[in-house]
Each structure stands twice: as structure tokens, then as C-alpha cells.
């Protein structure tokens, strides 16, 4: 009994902080999402409007377009990060001269604030001063202008995200690979398995939990990308990179459409949970059942 009380006592600071900064704001956002509230409207008060905001979201062409480009962004960014991250993790498992140096350098983007990443990429992609358009023009005669080309802007935001977050995937997978027991690999070698067979039948199943956890983290992060894209393209050209995070930002902050913006936030949270659940069900649950 005594130890139970002590446990709660020790947990209480964490619970307090979690409640204050996690649970309470979430409940507040859900509450606001059932209101029409724009402080710069003729009537600046919060007006309860039931589920009207949620009804509007479903028919909001701008939001749906935004959701579409976000899903494309998430797909290309996360898949690329996982593939590149795995290859890099495998490379860092081997010994080569300067390995520590390269591992450190490769991790540096992780410690940068997204707004700085956006600024750096803006400088690198601005025609006239940016190194990327200059090199593409000099080497291949390609005229890169992310202020004009929707495809170029979308691609650059994906590449920027890959540059920023692949190190996280690499680090997670290095941790997973390091912890693998050597016996199954030795056994496979004795049995004459080739590299492909080793990867599909031993490595991948054994790192699956770490891989799935990393994908979940990256997927949820990519779904709510705001800062770096806002800095790089502002959501443009047109709506080409107006990802849901950027859309919510513009709806809630400059437009001060607090009620509707909150409803979109809740919907996006729900979608993230659904996507993660689908991934879990399709990749983890069947194996657990078999086990």
C-alpha cells in the first residue's frame, strides 16, 4: 500500500505536466472545434455550432486538395527515408576509414530547427543566388524555379524532408541492427543463404518492430509538417505544397478561424491514427497472431 502511494507520488509531476500540456490542450481543441469563433468577426464571441465545422471540412475542396498533396508528400518522403536510412545504417555497420566522422556529419541535420532547415533550403533554391538552380542550369541546362513549378516545389520539399529526417531513421535502424544476435546470420551463412534471402528472411523480420516504430514516428511527423515548408514555399506555388499542417496554420493564425481550424486539426489527428492503425494491423498484428 505504502509503495503504491509512493509510486503515484513519484508519477504525479509527470502526470501533471502531461495533463497540462497534452491532455488539457487536446480537450480544449476538441471543445473549440464545435464552435464558430473568429476574434476578428463582427461578433468575436465563441458560438456553439454543433458539428457544423466537421460538416464543412468534408466538403472543403481546399482541405481535400491539401490532404491529397500531404498524403503524396508523406508517401514519398517516408518511403525514401526508410530505404535510404536502412542503406546508410547497413553502411555504418561496416568499418571504413572516417566512419565516425561521416556518422556525425550525417546526423547534423537532426539537430537543426525546422525553420532553419527551411531557410537553408530557401537560400539554396532561390534562382540567382541558390546553388541548386545554378548547378542544375550549368550542368544540365535545367531551369529550376520552385516559385513557378508545382512539381519542382513538391519535389524539393520531399528532398528537404529526406535530408532532414533520414538520420533519425538511420540511427533507429543502427540501434536495431546492433542489437541483433549473430547466431541466425551465422546459421544462414552455413546453410548457404544469399544476401537477399538473409535480408528478407532474417534481418527484416528481426528489425520489423523498430522499423515500424520509426515509420510511425516519421509518418506522424510528416503529416504535420509546417515550419520548413512554410519558410521554403509558403505553401506555393499556388497550393502545390499547402500540406495540411500549412493549411491549418494559415486557417488558424493569419485567418484566425479558430473553430474551423480546430476541427481540421482533430480530423487530421484522427486520420493519422487511422493510417497508423492500418499499418499496425497489416504489418504487425498478423505476425503476432501467428506467433
Amino acid at each position, binding site marked *: 500500500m505504502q509503495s503504491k502511494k509512493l509510486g503515484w507520488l513519484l508519477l504525479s509531476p509527470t502526470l501533471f505536466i502531461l495533463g497540462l500540456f497534452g491532455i488539457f490542450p487536446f480537450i480544449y481543441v476538441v471543445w473549440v472545434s464545435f464552435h464558430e469563433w*473568429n*476574434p*476578428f*468577426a*463582427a*461578433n*468575436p464571441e465563441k458560438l456553439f455550432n454543433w458539428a457544423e465545422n466537421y460538416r464543412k471540412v468534408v466538403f472543403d475542396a*481546399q482541405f481535400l486538395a491539401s490532404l491529397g498533396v500531404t498524403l503524396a508528400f508523406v508517401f514519398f518522403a517516408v518511403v525514401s527515408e526508410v530505404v535510404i536510412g536502412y542503406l546508410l545504417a547497413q553502411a555504418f555497420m561496416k568499418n571504413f576509414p572516417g566512419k565516425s566522422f561521416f556518422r556525425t556529419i550525417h546526423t547534423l541535420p537532426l539537430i537543426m530547427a525546422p525553420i532553419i532547415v527551411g531557410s537553408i533550403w*530557401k537560400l539554396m533554391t*532561390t*534562382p*540567382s*543566388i541558390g546553388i541548386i538552380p545554378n548547378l542544375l542550369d550549368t550542368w544540365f541546362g535545367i*531551369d529550376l*524555379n*520552385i*516559385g*513557378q513549378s*508545382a512539381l519542382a516545389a513538391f519535389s524539393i520539399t520531399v528532398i528537404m524532408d529526406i535530408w532532414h529526417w533520414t538520420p533519425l531513421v538511420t540511427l533507429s535502424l543502427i540501434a536495431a541492427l546492433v542489437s541483433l544476435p549473430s547466431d541466425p546470420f551465422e546459421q544462414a551463412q552455413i546453410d548457404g543463404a544469399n544476401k537477399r534471402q538473409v535480408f528478407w528472411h532474417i534481418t527484416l523480420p528481426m528489425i520489423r518492430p523498430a522499423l515500424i516504430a520509426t515509420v510511425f514516428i516519421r509518418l506522424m511527423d510528416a503529416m504535420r509538417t509546417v515550419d520548413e515548408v512554410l519558410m521554403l*514555399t*509558403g*505553401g*506555393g*506555388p*499556388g*497550393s*502545390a*505544397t*499547402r500540406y495540411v499542417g500549412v493549411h491549418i496554420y*494559415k*486557417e488558424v*493564425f*493569419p*485567418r*484566425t*478561424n479558430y473553430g474551423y481550424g480546430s476541427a481540421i486539426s482533430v480530423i487530421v489527428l484522427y486520420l493519422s491514427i487511422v493510417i497508423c492503425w492500418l499499418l499496425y494491423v497489416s504489418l504487425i498484428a498478423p505476425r503476432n497472431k501467428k506467433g
Partner: protein
Amino acid sequence: MFMRHKGGLTALAIALMTSALPAHADFWSDAGAKYKGVVLHGVTESSPPSAYIKDVLAPEFEAKTGIKVEIETTSWDQMYDKAIKDMEAGTGIYDMVYIEQDIIYAYLQRNFLVNMTKALAEKPELKAATYDESHFTTFANYFKNGDGDLFGVPMEAFIKVYLYRTDLFNDPAIQAAFKEKTGKDLKPATTHEDYTAIADFFTEYGKANGLDLWGSTAQAHTGHPASWYEFFESIAPTFGVYNWGIDANNNYAASVANGGTMNSDKAKEALKWWLHLRDIAPPESPQSTWTETATTFAAGRVAQGLIYGENAAWIASDASKSKVVGMVGTALPPLSDGVMADAESGKGYIGYYDGGAFGLPASSKNQEAALLFLQYIGQDEVQPGWAAAAPRITNTATYDAQEVKDMNAQLGGYYDMLRDQGKLFAGAPPYPFHAQVREATAPIFYDILTGKIGPDEGLDAMAAKAEEELTSLGYRK
């Protein structure tokens, strides 16, 4: 010998007088004594005038009063985000907030700001003798309520000016080539046709001569509201479309069908004119906001352009940042027929008179100390140095200061224009729904810029969207 005695006696007399006088330093140290140790927090847009407050005026004030002032300079949208959230929630983080002219109406509607005139009248012990509201230029009127009470100390005011390269415009070879091509003399344009002819000429000239030179700037970002503002505040008015094409006296109508002008023929003509300029502008233009157009001009990449006056000083005088020092001329923007007459009669205006003030949030917990600082930055004596560092004038006396006259010469008469013709320009219309209408219509505007939708149908859609938003906000019945 006598002289030496006389000098000694004078020194003695001064010493005696000094010691006999009561320990009275000056108003600032006396008034500030009560608040010594207080730390004031301000948030403002990162701009040359704000940098001067942060780097020069705040430390000066602290040295005189013992009140520390921490000024946070950040991007325009972040500044609003932080200030509005603080005032909305009443948290009192900020004791001073930057109020751009276009948001004052929204802030007043929400009672976010302290009435400075009233506050100083109620607390005469805080009133500095060197601060006088009547010394402000007429730009201060934008920050007053119906009773003439001031809600912010004007800290920057400038016009969006037509800058051109004097070295190019005065080059005899270029003048001859221009005359040969157009049959006209090369001089700052007064009409849109002339401006286009000059822009076309220089873009072709740059291409033909292998120069990084184009005919005009274009603040045409395809995802940032700077492009929206350039069109509605600087371009459309020169074609006779005022107040964003919204008629506040006619139930906030925006569409022609309902009595507005947002999608009028003039607006459509203006947009097509500007889109052509964007097409012949430097390649960075689709990514340019207000800062980047200035940078483009300073890099010597354009022959002419509409540039916010806050950047004019460093473009014209700071060789560490600008390649066109001593090569900058100023002129009024090119206009359609009838626009100047509209401006002179007060019916319209020829361009954007931008600026802002420092206001005191009602949520501030250090209102008295903040009142002192706001008066400090509003005094006549701090203005000349400030105006020389950043081309802003908010007090009438500033025009006569020698450093301002010197800078005026370097800027090709910009301050003369501000003083004499500033009345022809206007700030943003007095709407409390700026960001809301802008953000509702901006996605369509960006689609026009990317060519996804044509300018005519785009403006029609924007007018309809503006009316829809105004109805939703409850302003349009």
C-alpha cells in the same frame, strides 16, 4: 594672470552652483527611478526601423532610466502571431507590440490597446515635456480613435516608391538605344505604358548584353501574401481601384455585380499589366516578398521597381549591402488617367503609405514603464539619427535635421517626396478584417500567378470569395 584667476573663479562658481543645486538629474532618470529593474518586452517586425529601436534607443533608454527593454524582432507573420495570441489570451508577455497600420482597426475593435492620450492625461507625472503628440506627422491619424486619442507611437512611415537606376537612365548610349527603339526619351515613367516600355527595353538589353539585368521588380511570391499586397495596395490603386475594390459604404461589396470593383475592368487591366511585368522580371520574382524585391534592386539586377521606402536608405547608401549606392533615383508610381485627380481630391490615392506604431497592450503588466519608453521613442530629438539609419519620418521636425537632408540627397529626394507628396499615398483601408479577407482570397490569387486560373476569372472568383468571407464574418449583411 588676471585671465587665469578669472578662469579659476568661473570653475569655482560652477562647482559651488552644482553642489548647491538639489540632486535633480533629468525627467527620464527621475520618472524611471520607480521602475528601475523592470524589464519591458516588445515584439516587432524585423525591419531597419525596428533594428534601430533594439540596438540604439532601447539601450539609451535603459542607461537613462534603469528600465531594461528587450525587443524581439521577428518575421512579419510571426510577429502578428505572437502579439495577437498574447493579447487575445491576456497573458501580458508583451509590453509593447508593433501595430502595422493595416491592423490597427482590428486591434481597436477588440480593445487590445491602451489609449495613450488618456493614460498620460490621467498620470501627468509620467508625461515627458519633450514628448508631444502634435509633433507627429499626419500619419499618426491612422492610430487615433474617433475622439483623436492616440493608441500607438508612430515609429515608421514610408511610401512604396518608384525607384530607378540613375546610372542606367542617364547613360547616353542607353538613352540613344531606348530612343531608337521606342521613339521616346528615357526618363522615369509616369504612365503604365511608359513603364512597360522601359521594363521591356531593359530586360531585352540585359539579355542582349549578357547582363544580369531585368526591367522591373515584381513582388510576386506564389505562396506568400506579399504578392497579394503588392497588387491590391500598390498596383490596383494606380489604375483607380481603391480599398482592395471593396466598398465599405455599400455593404462591403466586392464584386461589380454588387457595387464593388475587385473584379472591375480596371482591376483586370491592372492585373494583366502586373503579370506581364512579373514575366519579364528577374527569375527570383515568384519567390520574392517585400524584402527580396529590395535585395534584387540592391544587387543591381533591375532598372526600376516599386520598393518599400523602409529599404530605400540602405539601398542608396550602404555599400556593404548594396551595389547601387549613389545610383538611385525616386519618382511617383506610374498612373492611369484620373488617378492623380482622385488622389488630390481625396477620392483615391496613388500608392501605399505604409508604416506602423508601437502600442501598449491592455494586457501589459508594466504599463507605466512602457508609457515612458513609448514617449522616449516619440521625442523629436531621437528622430534624426533614426531617420538617417532607416528612412522613416514620423515627426514633422525631422525633415529639418541636417543628417536627414544629407540622406535625402543620397536618396534622390525621397524625403522631399514623403513630405510634399505623401498625402497622395494612403495606408490600408480601415477594415477590421484584413488578414481574414486576404487569406480567404489569396489561394485564388496564387492560382492566378501560377496560371492555373486566368486573371479575369480569377478576379471574379476572388470578389465572390471576398463577399462570402465578409458575410461569414458578419460584416456583409
